[in-house]
């Protein structure tokens, strides 16, 4: 006979203000199987836990239901409490009467009624719970970092410095990411490359770091501590072990008209190229779309001139498979496509550029060698107008609803740098708000206004059009309440940033959740900000939300700390709530294995008695409990219902449904 204890938490006023907790506790006393029911202000407190422990012992409870917050918050707490009192931790069920009830309802009677149903449902389930024991699984002491920008680089360096092996998988030919494209960095104005490239070199030289550039993650299997990852090493048509980075091939290549994506397509580069001077690895790559040899079979000039014999036109994509204990996602961002913003004339005027393009135009290694010349005619622009929030904070549906966070600061930086270098240039900035929280940030912005005389105009721009070779920027000045038109030579758009689109594939492979803006979701916005809800997966940089370099680096180091904490363990406790097949009903049809995202299901031929002394050999499913993550996909796929999930059995779920439906 089950002896169930029910514990209703007030959560201060979080629950008690909307749910009549005393009534809930009182009603539960008359539920069949319940022998004890109580309510308390903070069940998760020491005293609250003590109350549970005492009740378990005094009333010989066989199972408990805690009506409190989400199991994500305190299930682990109450399981430990139960265990300390001698009860199997899996004989604990949480009824979520906070997030699922008190927080979302206003009417006390209705909320109380719902809380009663939720607790009753948990009671129905706990009655069918069985004691479960957690197993153990080993931890592979190697980490994978997806993305080789500043976030990936920092995370990899920190993990490697702690003594663990790290692989960086970077889809481009070099690591460095967006930061490598930037000119100066706010708020200190140090040169981006000067602070980034030493870290890139550190990665290359670190004996624990393996850089897999020009590679992509193709397949991920396994689970925390034991991921098995298939990586595609894309054909770069250059032998990485032989190329010395001498760049003779770049000089000799006859196909020089490819758009230089590193320079935001502002100039061209040869088919065979090294993206930039400090690229890591300093190895050439051939663009197959542009290479004459690869397209027509005729040419081969680079091969002739390559002293190292590194050119290999026959190279094919190869695949490697490696095991990892933890994965850091650091896939970064890109500026949004501006096709939906015709009003700014980006597609029609060469001199309407994005801020990232301006970075390249101001960079000494950029297409103009750092001299600010406008793209249309190579003249010095005398009047430059910046437009902020292009596609950010945009609820019209054309852009993004969120603030891209970095634009106010980099626009102030650009304005300041231009005024510093070219004092005869007039600089205007259209803004909605200037947002500068952060250490030394507001001081930085004030300097742009007060010291450098940048003209900040509160208001949005309605239209940019070309009139006799001049860019007319028509906008409103909300402070003076007037419509203004600024005749400009160059217009710079602070385009919103969005997650690098390849993150969707990565998220799918990792079964990591993603929000409506394609940002990866953290496990808890405040308390677990660098962990993905998928165990063993961590998030660094803009893939998780807009942020600047200092924040990205902090987050990357936080990720590293989490990864190190995980890899330092030799064994992890496994979740005992895993799938279990009933062999007597299994058809061996493989449908469960088809849907298993973790590769936990295999098949065996087993002999079964048929009666009358006869036997039969049948193919039946076996679940590897160390690999199974308890997602339950197999249980609903199995046509004969042979597959069940411990702790969430079909019977338990049906009894919950029945409890909810009961009048």
């Amino acid at each position, binding site marked *: 006979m089950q002896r169930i204890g029910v514990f209703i938490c007030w959560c201060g006023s979080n629950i008690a203000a909307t749910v009549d907790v005393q009534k809930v506790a009182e009603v539960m006393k008359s539920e069949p199987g319940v022998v004890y029911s109580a309510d308390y202000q903070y069940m998760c407190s020491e005293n609250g836990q003590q109350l549970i422990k005492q009740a378990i012992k005094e009333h010989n409870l066989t199972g408990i239901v805690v009506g409190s917050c989400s199991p994500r918050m305190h299930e682990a707490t109450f399981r430990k409490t139960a265990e300390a009192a001698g009860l199997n931790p899996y004989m604990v069920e949480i009824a979520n009467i906070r997030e699922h009830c008190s927080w979302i309802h206003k009417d006390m009677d209705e909320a109380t009624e719902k809380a009663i149903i939720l607790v009753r449902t948990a009671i129905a389930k706990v009655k069918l719970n069985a004691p479960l024991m957690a197993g153990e699984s080993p931890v592979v002491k190697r980490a994978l970092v997806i993305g080789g920008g500043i976030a990936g680089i920092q995370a990899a360096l920190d993990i490697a410095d702690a003594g663990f092996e790290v692989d960086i998988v970077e889809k481009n030919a070099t690591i460095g990411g967006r930061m490598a494209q930037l000119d100066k960095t706010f708020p200190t104005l140090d040169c981006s490359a000067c602070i980034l490239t030493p870290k890139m070199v550190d990665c290359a030289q670190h004996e624990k770091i393996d850089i897999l550039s020009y590679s992509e993650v193709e397949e991920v299997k396994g689970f925390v501590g034991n991921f098995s990852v298939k990586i595609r090493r894309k054909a770069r048509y250059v032998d990485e072990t032989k190329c010395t980075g001498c760049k003779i091939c770049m000089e000799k290549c006859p196909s020089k008209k490819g758009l230089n994506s590193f320079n935001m397509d502002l100039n061209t580069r040869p088919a065979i190229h090294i993206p930039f001077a400090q690229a890591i690895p300093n190895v050439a790559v051939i663009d197959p779309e542009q290479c004459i040899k690869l397209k027509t079979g005729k040419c081969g000039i680079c091969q002739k001139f390559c002293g190292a014999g590194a050119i290999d036109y026959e190279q094919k994509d190869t695949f490697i498979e490696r095991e990892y204990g933890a994965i850091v996602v650091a896939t970064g961002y890109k500026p949004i496509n501006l096709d939906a913003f015709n009003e700014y004339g980006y597609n029609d005027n060469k001199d309407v550029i994005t801020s990232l393009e301006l970075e390249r135009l101001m960079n000494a290694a950029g297409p103009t060698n750092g001299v600010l010349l406008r793209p249309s005619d190579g003249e010095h622009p005398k009047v430059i107008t910046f437009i902020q929030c292009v596609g950010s904070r945009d609820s019209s549906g054309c852009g993004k609803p969120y603030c891209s966070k970095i634009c106010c600061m980099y626009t102030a930086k650009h304005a300041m740098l231009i005024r510093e270098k070219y004092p005869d240039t007039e600089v205007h900035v259209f803004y909605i708000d200037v947002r500068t929280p952060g250490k030394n940030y507001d001081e930085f912005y004030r300097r742009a206004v007060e010291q450098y005389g940048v003209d900040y105009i509160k208001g949005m721009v309605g239209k940019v059009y070309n009139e006799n070779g001049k860019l007319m920027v028509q906008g409103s000045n909300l402070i003076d309440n007037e419509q203004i038109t600024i005749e400009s030579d160059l217009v710079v758009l602070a385009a919103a940033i969005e997650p690098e689109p390849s993150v969707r594939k990565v998220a*799918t492979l990792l079964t990591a959740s993603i929000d409506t803006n394609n940002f990866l979701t953290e496990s808890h916005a405040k308390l677990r900000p660098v962990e993905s809800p998928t165990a063993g997966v961590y998030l660094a940089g803009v893939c998780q939300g807009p942020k600047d370099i200092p924040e990205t680096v902090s987050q990357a180091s936080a990720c590293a700390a989490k990864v190190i904490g995980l890899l330092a363990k030799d064994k992890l406790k496994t979740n005992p709530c895993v799938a279990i097949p009933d062999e007597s*009903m299994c*058809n061996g*049809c*493989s449908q469960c294995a*088809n849907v298993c995202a973790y590769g936990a299901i295999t098949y065996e031929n087993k002999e079964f008695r048929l009666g009358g002394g006869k036997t039969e050999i049948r193919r039946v499913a076996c679940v590897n409990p160390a690999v199974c993550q308890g997602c339950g996909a197999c249980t609903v*796929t199995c*046509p004969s*219902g042979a597959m069940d999930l411990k702790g969430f059995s079909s019977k338990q779920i*049906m009894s919950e449904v029945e409890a909810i439906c009961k009048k």
Partner: protein
Amino acid sequence: MKDVEMKMKERAKQLLESGEVARVVGWKKGDFCYDPSPATFETVEELDNFVYDYFCGANLSKYLIQISKKEGKTAVFLKPCDTYSFNQLVKEHRINRENVYVIAVECMAKFDIEKIKEKGVSQITGVEVKDKDVKVSSLYGETTLYKPEILLTKCETCQKTHQVKDEEIILHERPERDVDRFAEVKKLEAMTEDERFAFWKEQLSKCIRCNACRNVCPACSCVKCVFDNPASGVAAKANDSEFEEKLFHVIRAFHVAGRCTDCGECSRVCPQHIPLHLLNRKFIKDIDGLYGEFQAGEEAEGKTPLTSYTEGDAEPNDVLNGEAK
């Protein structure tokens, strides 16, 4: 058809005599000309009763689940539609492919004796086919019927071709045809919810739960069916519904979704003439729409749309809103 039958019999004889196979699975004569039944032939003598004619509609694939476990090779005659079920069962590891020798046989569509009887012809003694005319002889004389009107429902829209064969016996070219197998489904879709509910209520209320549909279905090959398993909690639910056996058929349709090859056996064997195949065809049509054209049983390996995930798969909302690909 007689020439095809002779050829098949001859080949079966050779295979049995030479010892290449231990048995042949085909059809044997029944008490009447219109009720041949699936049978296993282990000796040349037994082949005297072998038959292959316009009434051999039964799908032989499912029998191979048990038979292919026996010692020695089994030869089986498969019509085009049967080969899809065969492939599907091989895919699900239910048939031991190495133990089976598949002889693909031609099919010019099969007849539904019930439809012939409905035309007022009884005590039938034989049929003779010439193009679209079917001369039906009976104890009372001869009647000529129009072939498309007496076909098995599953044959009316069949465009299937042999998906698997170790050898073939095909003497006549089957005429090409252009029919929409989803025409009936579309009619149901065009109904209002209430009309559709009334339609199925009327149809499924006829069910006597004889389980023939389930027992004949090649996709229903579970070692233990959920409806026979009191522990599953499903059996009771099937009975506890507003009108008899609604949930039984709905659950069954869900269980075979993505695996049903549209062989039409469920409707063929239903003694109450419930158009059960329409439930399955609705699923097939939806799967085609949401995931792209898919025919279960075309391949003997690989994943099916409902048990695999690919980037760009239909989102739950697409399914909810009925937005097809």
